[in-house]
């Protein structure tokens, strides 16, 4: 007779497992190996990995880089924020601070950039709307992510790490334009423009091209 969970088992309880237990343990173990293999496989074959270029950075140095980035490539302003259009292949710097993202960035569809994220004060969270892409933004650390925008349009950057009472006001903007065209899209545009883009789409919906 088996013991219940509240009675002390007597004698030697290290006994061979039941047949169905063996079957399930084998299946579960095999599934765990699939789960484990998927991550390295995606590093080799997949298009979305959170590896990036990671470095410690002094917040003041990072701020200086952002200022330089804005000075070199600014093409306009939007809602009081500089709109910056760096050339394809370049480094893009985004700064999170209580409670805004600086600057507004304009990218070309299909081009690769290195998007640097850091914070001047507390932790922030980078969330790209309506694509559901999320990264942690930690003060003192530079997270450089190689990105290729796959769809033209205007994107919101929502802060999704609690950063104080103004947290919900912290929304930035990324503009993606067709290659070679439509420079200076930011200058003097209406603030409400972002609301019309992809507003009613779920994350990832409407993407036709395979990013891989």
């Amino acid at each position, binding site marked *: 007779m088996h013991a219940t969970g509240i009675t002390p088992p007597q004698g030697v309880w290290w006994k061979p497992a039941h047949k169905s237990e063996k079957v399930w343990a084998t299946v579960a173990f095999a599934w765990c190996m699939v789960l484990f293999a998927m991550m390295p496989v995606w590093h080799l074959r997949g298009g979305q990995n959170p590896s990036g270029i990671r470095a410690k950075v002094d917040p003041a140095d990072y701020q200086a880089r952002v200022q330089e980035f804005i000075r070199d490539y600014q093409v306009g302003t939007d*809602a009081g924020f500089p709109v910056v259009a760096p050339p394809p292949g370049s480094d893009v710097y985004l700064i999170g601070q209580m409670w805004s993202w600086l600057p507004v960035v304009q990218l070309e569809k299909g081009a690769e950039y290195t998007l640097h994220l850091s914070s001047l004060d507390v932790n922030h969270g980078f969330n790209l709307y309506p694509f559901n892409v999320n*990264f942690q933004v930690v003060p003192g650390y530079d997270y450089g992510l190689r990105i290729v925008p796959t769809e033209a349009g205007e994107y919101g950057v929502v802060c999704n790490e609690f950063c104080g009472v103004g947290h919900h006001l912290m929304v930035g903007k990324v503009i993606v334009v067709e290659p070679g065209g439509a420079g200076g899209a930011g200058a003097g545009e209406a603030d409400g423009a972002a609301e019309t883009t992809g507003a009613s789409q779920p994350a990832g919906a409407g993407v036709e091209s395979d990013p891989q």
Partner: protein
Amino acid sequence: MRNPFRTCPTTGLDVHKDADALIKANAVAATVALLIGGATAVLVLLTRWQAVHLLSDVWFYRILTVHGMNMLIFFILFFEMAVLYFASAVLLNSRVAAPKTGWVAFVLMLAGAAMVEWAMFTGRADVLFTSYVPLKAHWAFYLGVILFAVGAILVTAIFFATLVVAKRENTYEGSVPLVTFGAMTAAIIAAITLLHGAAIYIPTFLWSLDLMHVDPQVYRLVWWGLGHSSQQINVAAMVAIWYLLGALTVGAVVVNEKISRTAFVLYILFISMASAHHLLVDPGFGPSWKIVNTSYFMYMAVLASMLHGFTVPAGIELGMRLRGFTQGIFGWLRRAPWHDPGFSALCLSVVVFGFVGGITGVTFGTEQINIIAHNTLRIPGHFHATVVSGTAMAFMGVTYYVIPLIFRKKIAFYGMAKWQPWVFSAGMLVFSTAMTFAGTFGVPRRHWDVTFSGAPFGVEYSAAVDLLFAVMAAGGLVAAVGGAMYIVVTVWSVFFGKPLGDEMTQSALAGTVPPGLYTRPFTELPAEPAKLKEHGRLGTMPGTMILVGVFLLAFVVYYFANWKLLSAMWQIG
């Protein structure tokens, strides 16, 4: 000298009166924390539901901090302290090794909790549960957490000391019961967890007094050694309670001690690595570190949970079949005591924890898939299914047995108690599922206003999100009713309930306590067990084989659907 023991008329166990008192004190403290956590849950819910948007921004983040601390730290840990005393002293017929130290620990935990509550309610700690440095709270907040943790570590030490005392004084024969073994697993994980807590809160306390520097990324690493590992104490304690409730309600057997105990050992070895789940899209760690840690070294802790997910229902099935419920594949399930709140709570806890909490947790904890889950509502959607629908539900279920067994009281409003697990679990299931779906639209967690009014740029979520918020609110409110039912029943039973006599027959007790107490399946084993029938490839536990097959299918589908979703994102690397 008075006899320090009483003999339990239900189980025949000798119960140490100090253990009795310590269990009662910790259980009452846990219920108070649950009450605060539950009331604040409703306030948070009614604020996030944008149609109501109850609290101001300041009070929303403040109350959210209160909700997190009370539920995830105070309620859970006080209850687990009670579980540790029960699984050591009561189940092993032993005395508590150091009852006076137990009371010191209780007072320390109470004082620590009070300091934290004071700091939070007076607006001195608007830093949320995680209190990520460099967001700064009043030093009393950090000191309170430290005192609470020191108290909890003392109880853990008393638990181990009691195991030694019981062994030395020969209070039981054979090996410790599986439930005690599971509680020991929880205690070992608790020791690991609380040491992480000390390692991060002591420096942070000093930082709050401007005495040292704490790196924000190092804080996140070590803090999650506390924050996530403490949820792994819950998992181990919950699984131990699954085995306990199985035994108490239907006389579930342990199909194989080796398998179940090995699975607990896998928890001890690997589960603490899960703190990496929170750091997968952080700048401080490379891919190798992330893969090895987030997978608990090749998913060995997931394997453990999948083993328990089999052995718990298999033990119930086998226990029922041995007692004569041998009809067909699912006859044992049909004829199970679904009206027993201990049994329904057990089953609902297993199912929702596994199907919703477990599957989403492993999926979101995948390095790359975390890109489309981190800090969205998918995360609280996941952990409400584990910690609330799983752990809290199991804790509630066992309370219906603890009240008669330890408090020696009848269950007040027993008719309501029978419905409580169903109401609570159904509400939480709707709530956490809606929350998880809202998160797939990118809706952030911990956010006062997702209409972003006043922000420089507009972001407008799909109309589906509004609907999901309404569903979340409906489910959450139903769950709150279920929580209130639990508190009414337990508080009334404990403080105003009718005492239980010594007569343990059905005629004396029916309708006032769960039926497991007078049918006593855990003591009344059948003299001649029913003959087990092989069902071909499904073996002697065919129902469980089918149930776990359905589970695996759901797991595979959800997991790969998320990879598909991820592949539609921008290229990132």
